[in-house]
């Protein structure tokens, strides 16, 4: 369980996040939604432990800031793509914390092999990461996160650069982690996809939390519309699945 109390993040005098209180239960998928600049990425970085904050942010009772002991995987929206590194090496970086930098144990080798097959990167694994397409790079990122065998995985817009088919494929690969007891926190612009995968949704607007709760109730709430200036419409398909689309007229 991650407990966030009165979380504030400031840059100079400007609050990026202000008085955020939320609880993220273990082994659930929680999705942060909100317009651009709402503070979603900052919230993820605070959860990772790299961004200084005031208030408290405890993961299983331990304050997370600069805590290197935790095993958290982070999938950024804009990764730095290293030159001269093969896909297999890139994915193997995920084992560094367990095996030690530059080492690879036999068990890690087997794990990475199976992850490469799962993410359909086997066969590409001797190519350089710089030669990958956008979709392949996103799979490599997810593969590296899987190789970490994390307790918590943070994903910043994991689907933003992908076509519809690859969006589903990527999110399915992440969903596998839930069977292993992993807690998943992601940001996603596509609220329809968020509702499909996440059990819980947290709505953030201008650095404040407007609402959090089970996906289905948040999707149909007035706070979600408010966060997007009432410029979204929520429809329900015959199957009961909600679909969120932008509203052209005001």
């Amino acid at each position, binding site marked *: 369980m991650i407990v966030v109390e009165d979380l504030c993040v400031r840059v100079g005098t400007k609050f990026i996040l202000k008085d955020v209180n939320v609880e993220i239960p273990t082994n659930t998928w929680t999705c942060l939604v909100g317009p651009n600049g709402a503070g979603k990425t900052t919230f993820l*970085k605070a959860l*990772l*432990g*790299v961004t200084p904050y005031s208030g408290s942010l405890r993961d299983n009772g331990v304050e997370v800031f*600069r805590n*290197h002991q935790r095993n*958290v*995987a*982070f999938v*950024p929206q*804009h*990764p*730095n793509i*290293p*030159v*001269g*590194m*093969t896909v*297999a*090496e890139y*994915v*193997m*970086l*995920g084992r*560094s*914390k367990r095996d030690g*930098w*530059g080492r*690879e144990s*036999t068990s890690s*080798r*087997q794990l*990475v*092999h*199976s992850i*490469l*097959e*799962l993410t359909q990167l086997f066969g590409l*694994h001797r190519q*350089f990461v*710089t*030669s990958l397409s956008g979709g392949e790079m996103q799979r490599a990122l997810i593969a590296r996160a899987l190789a*970490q065998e994390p307790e918590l995985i*943070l994903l910043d817009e994991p689907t933003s650069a992908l076509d519809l088919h690859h969006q589903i494929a990527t999110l399915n690969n992440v969903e596998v982690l839930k069977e292993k007891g992993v807690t998943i926190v992601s940001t996603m612009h596509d609220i329809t996809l968020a509702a499909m995968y996440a059990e819980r949704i947290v709505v953030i607007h201008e650095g404040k939390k407007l609402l959090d709760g089970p996906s289905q109730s948040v999707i149909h709430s007035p706070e979600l519309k408010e966060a997007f200036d009432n410029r979204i419409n929520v429809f329900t398909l015959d199957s009961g699945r909600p679909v969120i689309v932008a509203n052209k007229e005001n």
Partner: protein
Amino acid sequence: MKLPNQSSPPLSRMWSWRITFVAGLILLVVVVMGLSFGPIAINFQKILRTLVGAPGSLTGQERTLLLYLRLPRVILAGLVGAALATSGAVYQSVFRNPLADPYLLGTAAGAGLGATLAITSSHANIYSLLPLFSFVGGVLAVLVTFFISGRFFAEPNSLLLSGIAVGSFATAIQTYLQQRHSSALRPVYSWILGELTAANWTIVRWSSVYILIAIAILISISKQLDGLMLSDEESFSLGINPNRLRVIAVLAATLATATAVSASGLIGFVGIVVPHLVRGITHRVTNRSLATIAMIGASFLVLADLGARTLLSPAELPIGVITAFVGAPFFLFVLRRKRVTG
């Protein structure tokens, strides 16, 4: 899911030690060449016999030439080459900038200012302290660069820019001093172009301590440097403290560079050419190969010094001229080849 059997080869061929072995062989051959060739040629076998103390070793003038002139000079060239090449490779990783070179953070300009102060001072005692002055100057310049850029590693580019500003400032003072003391023009100029003529065992002794310590530190953290090629959030999640790692890497690389500069003046291009050469030939991340880069850097400078000694014999060319003359076209060749082959 089918798992590979236990004997499956490594998925990720991190580094082939055969390349390191070849680099070692190259260094060995180049060192023997450096000892043997020159205005007076010395027999290979006799050199080896003298070095291992076997019967039939050199005597008289040749022995003095080998042990007190060529050997310290070749060793110093090797040390300086290794220091510059390794720190160049490390700076390129730390700043994620393929054009970063060891003189980037104001080290060169600071060391140049220190050297000019020593040369222009009227006391002969101070002139003999030139290496110390340039060393202190180089380290001070880097510290000022760190200090000015404030939150130095939050944004590596701000560190780079403040390095450029500090460097220009130090160069301005140095040029002023140089113009005030016109008699100093020639020694300052030849120092700036780099020289190994003053090499002796004393210089080799103190510079080898700092350079070898710095290279050992850099090689010991080299595998973690791979993590710095990712974003800071990613490297943090992989168990690295990116800022601390950068500080350690930059300080060790600065120690190596400042020592090299104070021992031999400003020798350009080694820090850029050698890492790119190794990277261009092997197509690999350079961090894995710091030991190889050190050895190739050493070989490169020993060869360049051999050229400096022999091309205009008995006169000497500044070694910096050779490294730039060979280095620049070669660099363009590697760049072009990389662009063609990706």
